[in-house]
């Protein structure tokens, strides 16, 4: 018997024989989907006297919300910070490939670049729903150029710049438009960063602290101004010191306003952060941990030597080196690898590992009412995994978009 047509004609799918991640634990419940959203079966039963049109047996696997990658610079030979002739083609290629890693939404990241690059690339990138063509784009992550030169990492120093004109004006001068931008990384110790941070937050953009020499009080002031994220904790910032904890001290700061959480990105590839450091961060502030890949162009490419733009890269296992050296050239771990490594290194529960890649990124981006959970009414972006946390299927808006 079909559902009451006054609510919706769309077919209803019921995923049975599965364990779903809901309310922070894995529960033996069925997952109901209609019209690209998670459906409340009790409401369907009593209000519409409806039932499922199709039932899918999941073989007792785990269903989790799709992973969200808030920091990814490219992959499969594509570099988002290059003004290529086909920016959207490059985005689409990466968006399609990361479905295999369980990523259903991402923030293409631009490293410190000259204004011309921002002028060419930013207008081409649109917030876009995911689907069979690839993961959805939540908005750009602009990592730079308002960072500290001393902590630039791999960013080109000559394009790093301060807030010359009071903050807000600099933003428009450098970036042009802020439409379709979800996340901006700044170094809060730069003069005039306060007004810039406040303006970004006012526009609904998440502000992250990174590539910075800030001490804890400068970082806390930025949080008071609305910053809510830390870019790849430990990397490109002052190391933790017991008399001046620096940005790392935000994890246990008592000056974070009530009701607000400071989230922090972690590259859990086992290389960029020592597992013991990962555990210290996780144990001191588990609710804030956000897994990011910070993947570079070489991610997804096979082992061996590759030419990427001006660089020669050598890939060996999970390491990408500048060819002929032992200098790391960025992260090439995929999101599902990061989830597995995080679980194994921290000893956390399956639920915590999955939430670090889904719920927490959704929370820091302010979209957790729609993404990052399997709550009723949320977008039906989800993945099916086995008990080794290997992704077997990826679904976006209730549609199967990738299967192993």
């Amino acid at each position: 018997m079909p559902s009451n047509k006054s609510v919706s004609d769309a077919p209803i799918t019921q995923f049975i024989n599965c364990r779903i991640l809901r309310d922070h634990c894995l529960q033996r419940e069925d997952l109901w989907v209609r019209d690209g959203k998670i459906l409340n079966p009790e409401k369907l039963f009593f209000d519409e006297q409806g039932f499922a049109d199709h039932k899918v047996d999941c073989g007792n696997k785990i269903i989790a919300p799709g992973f969200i990658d808030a920091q990814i610079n490219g992959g499969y030979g594509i570099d988002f910070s290059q003004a290529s002739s086909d920016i959207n083609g490059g985005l689409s290629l990466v968006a399609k490939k990361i479905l295999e890693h369980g990523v259903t939404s991402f923030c293409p990241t631009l490293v410190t670049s000259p204004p011309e690059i921002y002028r060419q690339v930013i207008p081409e990138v649109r917030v876009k729903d995911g689907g069979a063509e690839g993961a959805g784009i939540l908005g750009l992550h602009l990592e730079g150029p308002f960072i500290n030169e001393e902590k630039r990492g791999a960013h080109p120093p000559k394009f790093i710049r301060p807030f010359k004109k009071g903050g807000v004006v600099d933003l428009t001068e450098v970036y042009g438009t802020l439409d379709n931008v979800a996340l901006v990384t700044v170094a809060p110790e730069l003069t005039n960063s306060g007004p810039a941070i406040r303006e970004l937050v006012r526009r609904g953009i998440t502000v992250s602290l990174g590539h910075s020499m800030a001490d804890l009080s400068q970082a806390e002031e930025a949080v008071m101004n609305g910053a809510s994220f830390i870019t790849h904790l430990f990397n490109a910032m002052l190391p933790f010191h017991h008399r001046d904890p620096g940005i790392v001290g935000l994890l246990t700061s008592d000056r974070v306003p009530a009701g607000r959480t400071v989230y922090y990105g972690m590259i859990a590839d086992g290389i960029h952060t020592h597992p013991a450091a990962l555990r210290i961060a996780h144990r001191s502030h588990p609710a804030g941990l956000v897994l990011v890949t910070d993947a570079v162009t070489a991610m997804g490419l096979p082992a061996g030597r590759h030419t990427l733009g001006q660089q020669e890269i050598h890939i060996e296992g999970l390491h990408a080196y500048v060819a002929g050296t032992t200098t790391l050239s960025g992260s090439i771990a995929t999101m599902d690898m990061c989830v597995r490594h995080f679980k194994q290194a921290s000893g956390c529960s399956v639920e915590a590992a999955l939430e670090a890649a889904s719920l927490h990124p959704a929370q820091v981006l302010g979209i957790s009412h729609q993404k990052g959970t399997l709550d009723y009414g949320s977008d039906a972006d989800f993945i099916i995994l086995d008990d080794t946390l290997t992704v077997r299927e990826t679904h976006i808006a209730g549609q199967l978009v990738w299967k192993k």
Partner: protein
Amino acid sequence: MRLVILDDYDLASEWAAKYIRNRIIQFRPSADRYFTLGLPTGSTPLGCYRKLIEYHKSGDLSFKYVKTFNMDEYVGLPRDHPESYHSYMWNNFFKHIDIEPQNTHILDGNATDLQAECDAFEQKITAAGGIELFVGGIGPDGHIAFNEPGSSLVSRTRVKTLAKDTIVANARFFGNDLSKVPTMTLTVGVGTVMDAREVMILITGAHKAFALYKAIEEGVNHMWTVSAFQQHPRTIFVCDEDATLELRVKTVKYFKGIVDWVLWKVQFKGNQFWHLIVTKV
């Protein structure tokens, strides 16, 4: 009446579930002839529901041609509140079985005209051909459904205000905050349940023992509304040992002694279901 005494809660739940299962199977329900079942809520029947779900999942029992009528629902509680009886029935029973949504009937405690809702419920029961088997529980104050002490023994489905005893008993579901417990309910009447062709009352636990004593060893009394079933032609009381604690030793020995356990054999799709039942009244 038949008084069936099992050793513990699990055995009592299993006995009751098997009885319901066999009655449905033997009835051979079909699209032209539904099996109408009255159902309770609360902690007592949970074990019985779990067993029924087990029988359904193993393929032995289908609810496709079963119509259900619940006894009661709170007034003014949102339907999706976790303590509403709609939520209870969905989570503990309906979502695990193959019953069709339009065959389930639960009173709507948020209807604009509550008495009209009650009258309509009575009509739905009549339209379905009456209740074949009404399963119920008993409150610590001897009430059946929400027919609190003083309810008419010939009452029909209506709005009732809860007694203090019942509100206190239910507080545990509302964070032990008495102010959060609903004070009014819609309930089937004693008369409504008496109209059923067969009634099965589940009573387990020492806290129900006094109510059971009042219900079956004393007279028919509107202060202990379950006692009305002394005047019903086919009633079974299913209880565990603890529930018999206030009965006279003589009563318990009598009912255990006159038991003529017979294996009731029911054939269904090539499987045979055996169940021990009491034949003597």
